[in-house]
């Protein structure tokens, strides 16, 4: 146990105007038990305490401290309880990550137009997107954006439930990082796209890196 603190100031020094209240408060806060400080209303920011506490009060408190010997560490259980009460509990337990660490994500995203940065889709929610997909050589293999603005009014963006493995992994993971209104370019490596097979009888060859420009229109 720490050695008992010693009196620093005599009664005369305490009464003197040379000794600022702040120093006295600091000493008492540093050395007194929590319950002592509470009783004497000496808890909290020194500046604030200095505003509310009068010098006379502080002298009384100082003297009582040494008389009662209610120094820090003399009431450990109580202090622990206070600490525990003071700790904030998280409402939701943190989700345990079940996924085995497979390494870095196999896609990259560059934001072309920022979204609202507030509405991010969650797994299982329905999202809708306009998109254009092309190969590395520039061939466009798929798009749902009609050619004229007038036609675009007639068609709907593609909607699907995100994060459930219904679309290629690059899309699932990529769209989850987007917020409503965002337009992004996702460059997806083959492992998170159509892999070694590609899509037979289509423009997507085996081992193709796919580039999608995606606009996240709405989130459920």
């Amino acid at each position, binding site marked *: 146990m720490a050695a008992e603190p010693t009196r620093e100031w005599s009664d005369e020094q305490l009464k003197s105007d040379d000794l600022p209240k702040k120093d006295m408060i600091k000493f008492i806060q540093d050395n007194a038990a929590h319950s002592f400080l509470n009783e004497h209303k000496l808890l909290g920011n020194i500046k604030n305490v200095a505003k509310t506490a009068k010098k006379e009060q502080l002298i009384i408190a100082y003297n009582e401290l040494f008389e009662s010997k209610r120094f820090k560490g003399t009431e450990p259980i109580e202090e622990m309880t206070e600490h525990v009460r003071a700790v904030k509990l998280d409402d939701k337990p943190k989700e345990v990550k079940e996924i085995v660490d497979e390494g870095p994500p196999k896609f990259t995203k560059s934001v072309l137009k920022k979204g609202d940065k507030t509405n991010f889709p969650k797994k299982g929610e329905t999202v809708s997107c306009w998109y254009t*997909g092309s190969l590395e050589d520039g061939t466009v293999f*798929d798009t*749902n954006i009609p050619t004229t603005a007038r036609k675009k009014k007639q068609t709907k963006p*593609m909607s699907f439930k995100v994060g459930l*493995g219904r679309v*290629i992994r690059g*899309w699932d993971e990529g769209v989850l990082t987007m917020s409503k209104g965002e337009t992004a370019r996702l460059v997806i490596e083959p492992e998170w796209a159509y892999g070694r*097979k590609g*899509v*037979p009888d289509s423009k997507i060859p085996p081992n193709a890196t796919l580039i999608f420009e995606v606009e996240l229109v709405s989130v459920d």
Partner: protein
Amino acid sequence: MSGETQLEAAGMALEQLSDVVQRCQGVPDDSYTTEAHDVFTVAGRICIEEGNSVQVLSIVLDDKNQDIVRCMGWNLLPPLVQILLKKEDKDLPHCLAIFNHLLKACRPKELLIGLLEQLEQDDADTIAESLHLLLNPLQKVLLCLGSRKASSLGMTLSSVLDQVAKLPVPHTKEQEEDDVFSLCRCCTDLIPFVRPFVQEARQNLLNSKKQSEVADKMPVGGEWSSPDKEELRTELLKFCMKTLSHPLLEVQLKDPETLAVSPLRNFATEILNTLSAIGESVPSLVYQPLLKRKEVPGFLEEEVRYPKESLASLAHLVFVHHLAADSFPSVFSPVFCLRCNMEHVCLLLSRTDESRIQKGLELYEKSLVRVENGSLHADLLEIKTFLTVPQNLVKVMTICPRQDLRTKGLKAFQLSIDKFDTGAKYKFFLFMLKTSNHSGVEGYIIKNIKTQIDISLQPGNSNTWFEGVHLLPLLRKVFILPDGPETDLLQYMDRVMESLNLLRYLVIRDKVTENQTGIWTELYKIEDTFLRPLRVGLDMSRAHYERELCNTMEAKKSKVKEEGVLSVSVGDEKLPNMTPECQIQALHSALHTFDMIKSVLVRIEELIEVKDNI
């Protein structure tokens, strides 16, 4: 009737017609008598049939007669259509003129009934001709019905498709080109027929979308449409769904390389386009088995609205024939695609109809091919279709009458095995050994097990399924004789041979000192429950068949006609007994089988002995 009386009758009819028409002039049409109706109808018919259509035409065109024409004219449709269908009649132009006038003058609802009645004909040729003749008039009449046309359109489309269903379907490329029964022409005619209604439905959709945009909500099906508009969409949907079943599920579409211009392929493409136009997303339809759709307020319940068979047909068109590929999103994961298609495949393979089985196999193959080998996880086997499809496949492989489909089925079966990862393969093999109840299939599975063991024994491929902990339980399911020594070895030949091949392989490949597969420690059990009873069974069977052979040869020599213990009748005819020559051949073949089994068994025993002595 003699020629004279006929003329008389015709003349009389004309008189009666002119008469009744005159009587009705100036009379309000709601007070025409039933008698007037009947006279007009009968007399009119006779006039037309007897070739007096010129006169009928002038009566019908007469301004003073427009009330009666509007009220009763439609009753002349039957005889008119008969003439028009004949095509070579000299009265054709006049009848056509009468017909066209009636279309304009009479009430649409009544014309509709009259025209629809005329669609129903007896033979295929007339059906095709009447469709060709009447689709255009029907369209005109429907367009006159205004916003209340939906239910009439539905009735019309339903009748038309019922008639189309009676036409024989072309199978080969040449048959499609020749189109002798005009099915292709009918389908081709249907496209312009529905076009204005599809346009209207598309416009309705657009308008409702605009409305909802103003109110800042997404339209869901019937929410923003009036009942009439929703009914129109529903009738067109019903039409598309029906065509997907027939004729589209019946025909084998030809690819562009085979047949550059294919009316049926065009028709199928148009149906897909129509679905999109009326607001039914093709991906949603195809993936419907897995998507929980929101309850759309409307006419029909989900299952009626989207018949499973039609959706399966649609999936086939999209994934096998790549129709409307440009508008189908390329973002869905191959496994999701497979899972959805399994439902369609299951449905198609559960039919006995060969056309559906073929499409089921094609769809299955196309879905599997997109997935990488060894990538499907055992979890998928918890899904019902992943078990029922192989079971349906077994039926196809073993009892489908068409050889090409049996072969195709086997190919699909092996392809599906290849796509499973190791753990899933293991689980699948156990399942098939347990449930297939067919020696050939079991033998095939056992061959696959051998392949997997071989792979796992290669450096770097070690796994706990085909080596290690799980292998022995699987092998115990392989090395069994269902009825012990009494097992019918001929019936179980495939399975027994493959089991012996596997055992021979293990005994050669796995060194006694290494015992990677555990076979050496298991061997004594296998000898007990499999090898020993097999030896006994073989000896017994061999003895039995040798005796049979002797007897048969004796019987042949002495030319005694043996009354067979067994006779087979088909219908009421008894099939001839097997000739002695055939019997002898069969018995030799059985003995040969036993020899084969015996030789592998002996070889295995030799190998075991050698290794035991090491």
